[in-house]
Structures are given as structure tokens and as C-alpha cells.
């Protein structure tokens, strides 16, 4: 009806907030993946305030069988965790992670961005290639920025898929993060007598086009 011409209509006025809430409800319900505020606004008529509509929607679903949850900078609808027992049919058999993979994942989540050498320093053993590959393949971790230390090692960080998997709004909501930080257990403390590597932020040997010498071999 009206929706046939949302574009011409929107030149004049954004739809009322209740209508915006309905739109977001529809989009989030339809999608299995989290949707960002930007994507929501791109789909909605011009002038909509997706963030405000989201806040209303979130309140509306408070305590219901499905919930509006935040995943990184995106939003999704998920069933309430206390109703998991009804869903045996939907449960997907998750691949069992090895103890090494679980620890590596936790270290990446709590220490990110973290290099392979740092993971090995914390675990006290070398990290097997398969472990990192598995986590990359599951898209729970990805490469982060290179560390500006000798060798320019790549770092690892966790992904939005990881947050979605564990029902976290952001990596700041990891359980016990604050306590661990307060206890100094997330510091990268070097063994006594070892010189800290200099954080040399700009490297003259890098030409303007961002081609580090690493790629020239």
C-alpha cells in the first residue's frame, strides 16, 4: 500500500517510531545473522532512527521467549537461554574443541590482540598449527593488526561470530575480565632481565604504499 513508494514518501517525513519499531522487528526476525544499525537504516526509509527504535524493541521483548540481543555492533533476535530445553530438535552437534584449542581461544579473547609467541608464553607450550587453523576456520578468531615490534608478528583477535556464539555483547563483557585485569593477569609481563621490544611505530623502511619488506622475499 503505502510501502510501494517508501522512497518518495520518505522525502517528506520519516515513519512514526512505532512503525520503525515494526520494521526493525521484521528485519531482525527474518535474519539468522546479526544486523548492524547501519544495515538496518540502509534498508529502512530515509530519516529513520534505528538505534532509538531498537531500544524500544529491546524493552518490548524483555522477559519474552525471544530476546533482542546485541552482538558486537550488530543486533539479533535469539531465543531465551532458559528455554533451551525445548529445542533438542534444533540443537546442532558442535565440534568438540580440544583443551589446547579452548585455552588458545580464551587467551586470544582475554589478551587480544595477541601474537602467537605471546600465546605460547602464556601456555608454556608451542601452539600447533592445527589449533589456530581450526579457530580461524570456525571464524571465531581472525588476524588483527601487526604488532610494531621486530618481526612485525601478526596478532589474533576474536570475531563477531565468537561473540554471537557465546552470547556476548562485546569482548569487554567476557566473564571475569575486570578481575583478571585488576589482578594484573592480563599484562604482558616479560621475564626479568629481558629488554622490552621497542614499539617503533613508524618504520622508515616502509614505503608510502604500505609494502613492508616482508612481502619482498
Amino acid at each position: 500500500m503505502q510501502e510501494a513508494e517508501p522512497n518518495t514518501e520518505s522525502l517528506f517525513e520519516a515513519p512514526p517510531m512505532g512503525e520503525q519499531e515494526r520494521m526493525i522487528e521484521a528485519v531482525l526476525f527474518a535474519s539468522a545473522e546479526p544486523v548492524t544499525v547501519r544495515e538496518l537504516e540502509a534498508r529502512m526509509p530515509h530519516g529513520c532512527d534505528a538505534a532509538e527504535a531498537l531500544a524500544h524493541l529491546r524493552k518490548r521483548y524483555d522477559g519474552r521467549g525471544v530476546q533482542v540481543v546485541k552482538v558486537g555492533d550488530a543486533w539479533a533476535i535469539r531465543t531465551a537461554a532458559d528455554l533451551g530445553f525445548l529445542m533438542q530438535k534444533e540443537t546442532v552437534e558442535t565440534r568438540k574443541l580440544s583443551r589446547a584449542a579452548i585455552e588458545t581461544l580464551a587467551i586470544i579473547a582475554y589478551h587480544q590482540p595477541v601474537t602467537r609467541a605471546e600465546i605460547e608464553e602464556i601456555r608454556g607450550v608451542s601452539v600447533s598449527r592445527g589449533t589456530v587453523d581450526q579457530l580461524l576456520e570456525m571464524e571465531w578468531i581472525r588476524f588483527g593488526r601487526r604488532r610494531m615490534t621486530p618481526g612485525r608478528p601478526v596478532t589474533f583477535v576474536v570475531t563477531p561470530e565468537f561473540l554471537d556464539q557465546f552470547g556476548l555483547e562485546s569482548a569487554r563483557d567476557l566473564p571475569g575480565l575486570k578481575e583478571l585485569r585488576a589482578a594484573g593477569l592480563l599484562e604482558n609481563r616479560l621475564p626479568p632481565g629481558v629488554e622490552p621490544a621497542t614499539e617503533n611505530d613508524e618504520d622508515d623502511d616502509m614505503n608510502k604504499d604500505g609494502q613492508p619488506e616482508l612481502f619482498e622475499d
Partner: protein
Amino acid sequence: MSDNLFQEDNISVADRLAAEALIVDVDGYEGPLDVLLTLSRTQKVDLRKISVLELARQYLVFVEKAKLLRIELAADYLVMAAWLAFLKSRLLLPPDPTEEGPTGEELAAHLAFQLERLQAMRDAAARLMARDRLGRDFFARGQAEDITRIKTVTYTATLLDLMQGYARIRTRDEFRPFTMDRDSIFTMEEALDRMRGLIGFSGGWTEMASYLPDGWTSDPMKRRSATASTFAASLELVKEGHLDIRQTESFAPIQLRKKDSST
């Protein structure tokens, strides 16, 4: 008294039993740090208050016992044993003022920190895995909707595709060597010739950068090539005994000096 501590005769029965239990399962451990963490539990105290000296003793008992049972321990277990023996002596003997480096207490504190951090990460991992999980405790939309079929084709690729694609090409290169035509190369031979002519005149420490040929310092490509070959040439001259070379820290300028034949 302190001599006694270095002998393995006075191992308590409990220690022996603990060590044997560890050895039976040595394959189940993830390296020396894991063993130390397990041993530390026998102290039944907060990890912050752990006695590293006691822990070192327990670990050495464990390694000694393994030797008696002719169990092959991986090299890193033996490296840890050697290090702990060293730490033990540092902790027990009065500090030698002439000796440099960190004190035994500093080393012990760091080891305690490592153990506490590993334990903390294990606890964190357990808490993480105990959380409600997508697809197990809470669920995504079972039926993503398709009301209007407006087909737009987009093409995707993942980082893995990209890396594999690049790897494929570069692997091919190993059999069909690829060289870019580059005219901005300052060869090591050229650098060596140049350096031989210049080092005779310099007395004190001079930065290596000042040896770069004129016209090779502004263009980054040329500067990189000239720097690399000048550095390689410098090393060659050091090897030949004509030069001294030093760098105070990572990324600091590299400095050269003509070798003084009188010293």
C-alpha cells in the same frame, strides 16, 4: 644444612608418590609449566603465596624420578629442570654482588606470575565454555525468510581463498622463478667496493646511514636496497677484521668504526 637440600635422599614419601603419579601420566601434560601448575596444587595455598623454592624441589624430584624409571623426558622438561636448579641455588645462596642480572626473588616472582596467569586463563576458558551457547542453549532464526525474490548476485571470497590464491601463485614461482625488472638495486659488490674506499678515513663511531651513496637516500626503494647491501658489506668487513659494528638497541642506528689495530 643447605647442602642437604641439594641431595635427593631426603625426599619425603609423599613427594615420591606425587612424582610417580605425574610420571605415569607424563604424556597427558602440556609441558613443564603444566606439570609445575599441577605440582603447585599440592601446596594447597593461594598461587600468590606459593613457595617457588618448594616447587623447584618438587619438580627436580619429578625429573630425577623419571630418570630412575628410565622415562625419556622431552628436552623442554630438562631445560626447565636445569633452570629450576639454577633458580634454587640463587634463592638459597646469599646474593653475589658481582653477579649481574635479575635476583632469584625476581625470577621466582615471575615464575609464580606465569603459573597464576596460566591458571587464570584456564579458569577463564572454563567459564567461557560454561556460558549459554548459540545452537545449544539459545537459538537463531530457524527459517530465514524469503518473501520477495529479488535476485542480486554478489561475489564473495574469504581471506583464506585470497591467501590460498596467492600461495598458489607463489608456489608456482618456485619452479618458474619470477624476477621483476628492477633498476633500483645497489649490489653488495658495489657496496663493498665503496666501503673499502671509505673506511680508511673514519676514526670514531659513524652511523652506517652516512655511508649510503649519493642519490640513493631519498627514493625509498633505492634507500632500502642501498641500506641492505651496505649493511651486508659492513658485516663482511667486520668478518675480515677491518671494522667494528654496534647497535645500542632494536631500531637504533647502526654504527661503524674502523678497527683499531692497537687494541
